């Protein structure tokens, strides 16, 4: 419990800094935003959350179901390949989608010039944003739901069928409700990322709550007003998360019986072909086409831009993401475990607060962390000066420690989601059996739970690794001199609109992000002991 509180306290630092902005009320700016900006963007944001929620759920659950429970040609490849869009930053997918599908893109140009066809729906629209975000974020749901389906007892489904339910009914009335906490965990991650997204929204010029936060800060020069808006966003997320949590605390989800992996449904040819086409289309649009486009752009700039420094950029990215992911997984595991040992409302609130960092717009979180670190540093420097003749200007700032703690605060949720929902699926009978056999608390964790959680831990580590690789605002603000990463390169190129030149670092991020996904597949697909 103490540990959980300590973690929550760490996350609360930027929350408190952000909320403290209310000390300086920017009535003028807030009045303006309320009158002219908020009405539209509240509607925009709700539509976006609704659309992306439905999009990622439908894509994620359906793909998870067919790859986990059915057998069709190519299933083994799709099983891991459908995770790949995770390695692709959403703003890259957005830029490629607009590049290809807008009025000036090759497709519409060709249709217009050769066939005189016009009047297609605009990609730069609400539907377009929802589509792109859904394609970019469905892997959160897919990956967690796939673990759920794969470990869900086949016995439950067989029981449902023996009670006269068809397979379809079995899916909707047994498998889906049983997988609900897992699907919800993935959905929460996707929606928090959607709410906090700035890059994709900027490319679509789609106004959301988060774009208004940046408008208040960058355009109206008021960090205070931005922080006030961010506070409202955070409160909204907190309420939603707690509400979701409450609605399912009464239920207990545990695995019953043996794994279903050996009992895939063999699809008849027509359905198998449909499954193949469906999974193939999603993979092509969400990953293959954007990556091919990136590769083509990269070819144009590789001679000018690729130099020996890229090894350092890639090394920094992988190192930071690697250490960061380990920290996230370790802390998330302890936090989730604390919840299992001492459930209750206090613990639930602590956990929810500790994982709020993911809902912050990145740059607001970065500032919220930087301000207290700088204050602490100023204090340390004063002591250093008075006592030791210290003459520098940075003690904590400009160390990797600050950077890694910031990543922890931001990405604890992506580790916590899969691990907590994984832990929920381990029945208490297992604990009791182990205790009866004389296993202590530590032994229970290391010898019983950890092996059972392997897939969840790997999922958590992959999410954290890939997310840190893609992260921009915290990296920019807290990196020590000379610690540029691949994401920093992307920023350098895109900040003046040189998207084609950003393809090289983007592609490098994708390649580096694929490594843990392949690792995850390789480890995760080994037969259960």
């Amino acid at each position: 419990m103490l540990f959980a509180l300590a973690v929550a306290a760490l996350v609360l630092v930027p929350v408190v800094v952000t909320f403290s902005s209310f000390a300086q009320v920017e009535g003028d700016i807030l009045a303006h935003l309320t009158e002219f900006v908020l009405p539209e963007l509240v509607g925009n944001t709700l539509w976006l959350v609704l659309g992306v929620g439905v999009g990622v759920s439908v894509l994620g659950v359906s793909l998870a179901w067919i790859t986990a429970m059915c057998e069709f040609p190519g299933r083994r490849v799709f099983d891991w390949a459908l995770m790949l869009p995770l390695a692709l930053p959403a703003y890259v997918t957005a830029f490629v989608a607009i590049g290809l599908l807008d009025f000036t893109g090759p497709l519409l140009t060709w249709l217009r010039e050769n066939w005189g066809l016009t009047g297609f729906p605009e990609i730069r629209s609400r539907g377009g944003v929802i589509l792109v975000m859904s394609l970019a974020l469905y892997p959160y749901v897919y990956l967690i739901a796939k673990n759920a389906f794969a470990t869900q007892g086949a016995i439950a489904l067989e029981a449902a069928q023996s009670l006269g339910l068809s397979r379809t009914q079995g899916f909707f009335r047994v498998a889906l409700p049983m997988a609900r906490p897992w699907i919800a965990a993935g959905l929460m991650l996707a929606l928090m990322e959607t709410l906090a997204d700035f890059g994709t929204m900027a490319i679509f010029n789609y106004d959301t709550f988060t774009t208004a936060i940046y408008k208040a800060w960058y355009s109206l020069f008021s960090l205070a007003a931005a922080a006030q808006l961010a506070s409202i966003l955070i409160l909204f997320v907190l309420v939603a998360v707690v509400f979701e949590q409450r609605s399912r605390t009464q239920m207990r989800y545990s695995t019953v019986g043996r794994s279903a992996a050996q009992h895939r449904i063999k699809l008849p040819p027509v359905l198998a072909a449909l499954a193949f086409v469906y999974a193939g289309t999603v993979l092509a649009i969400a990953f293959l086409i954007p990556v091919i486009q990136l590769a083509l752009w990269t070819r144009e700039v590789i001679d000018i831009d690729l130099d020996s420094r890229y090894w350092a950029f890639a090394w920094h990215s992988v190192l930071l993401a690697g250490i960061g992911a380990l920290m996230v997984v370790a802390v998330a595991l302890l936090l989730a475990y604390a919840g299992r040992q001492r459930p209750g409302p206090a613990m639930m609130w602590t956990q929810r607060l500790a994982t709020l960092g993911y809902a912050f717009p990145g740059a607001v979180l970065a500032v919220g962390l930087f301000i207290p670190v700088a204050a602490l540093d100023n204090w340390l420097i004063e002591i250093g000066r008075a006592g030791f003749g210290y003459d520098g200007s940075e003690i904590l700032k400009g160390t990797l420690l600050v950077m890694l703690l910031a990543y922890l605060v931001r990405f604890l949720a992506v580790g916590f989601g899969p691990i907590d929902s994984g832990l929920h699926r381990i029945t208490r009978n297992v604990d009791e059996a182990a205790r009866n056999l004389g296993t202590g608390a530590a032994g229970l964790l290391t010898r019983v739970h950890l092996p059972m959680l392997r897939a969840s831990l790997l999922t958590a580590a992959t999410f954290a690794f890939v997310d840190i690789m893609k992260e921009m605002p915290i990296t920019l603000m807290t990196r020590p001199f000379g610690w540029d990463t691949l994401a920093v390169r992307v920023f350098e190129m895109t900040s003046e609109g040189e998207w084609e030149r950003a393809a090289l670092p983007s592609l490098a991020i994708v390649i580096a992000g694929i490594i843990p996904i392949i690792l995850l597949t390789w480890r995760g697909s080994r037969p259960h002991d």
Partner: protein
Amino acid sequence: MKPTRLLAVLALAAAALPALAEEVVVYSARNEQLIKPLFDAYTRDTGVQVKFITDKEGPLMARLKAEGKNTPADVLLTVDAGNLWQASEEGLLRPIQSKTLLANVPAHLRDPGNEWFGLSVRARTLVYNTGKVKPADLSTYEDLANPKWKGRLCLRTSKKVYNQSLVAMMVREHGEGKTEDIVRGWVANLATSPFPDDTKAMEAVAAGQCDVTLVNTYYFGRLMEKNPTLPLAIFWPNQGLKNETAGVHVNVSGAGVTRHAKNPAGAQKLIEWLSSEKAQNQFADVNLEYPVNPRVKPDAKVAAWGGFKQNLINVKEAGSLQTKAVKLMDRANYK
């Protein structure tokens, strides 16, 4: 060794390091690829090391503020005047007395209080489709609000500071009411929703989705370098009028010395060097911008677009009127 003594030794060692070579630390919102070659040249020229970190202006200023007098930064470098004005308002910069800078940087492109100085000029102008528009039909920014352009105008989003600066300057020139009417006219003439960047807007003009747009010239240069056959050309607006407020809207990429700089003299020398004839071409040409120093000629490719008269209102107004401009654009429903 006792821990306290160890700390003291470490602190001394840390204190001794900067003495080895003079160093200037820069916080830059201008891209690494645009500034690093210059800083390398400066080091070759003077032996002074330049350490820098890049980020957006907002976070860089928040950082300077949070660090207070312990900031490592000596120089703040940005890509627009509005943010420099804001940094000065927040007390993050210090005035510097430099005859060199006063001589190298025209009066309307630097802070009247000498806290910051423009280093390259970015001109925001009209680009039109040569197959659909005759130059004679074009005249001013304001004229784009004329109903004759209905369905023929493309614009970049109002969230970009370049458009905010342009509208801020128009507020200074025409007042808020008239400017709002003009912006409403623009919005009414839009052929499609605003674009995320200048390049996309020009591509739409080239593809015939609209006929004319507003861009910074270096985006035009970059696009034409890649694809020289596009039916696009530059038009310099607001040239015929006589008053001092007439002319092409310009902004600057510029720099100032931070209030709590550890090496203010070194910082000033670096900025002076950047404004000198030696460095100006490299500073501007690498991004197809205009040198700020009137004695330095622009790159040949840039010069080929022809000369133009600049709007001579001090660029600091882009900052002081930015909030007004943004609110006005929100009211006019310019997304």
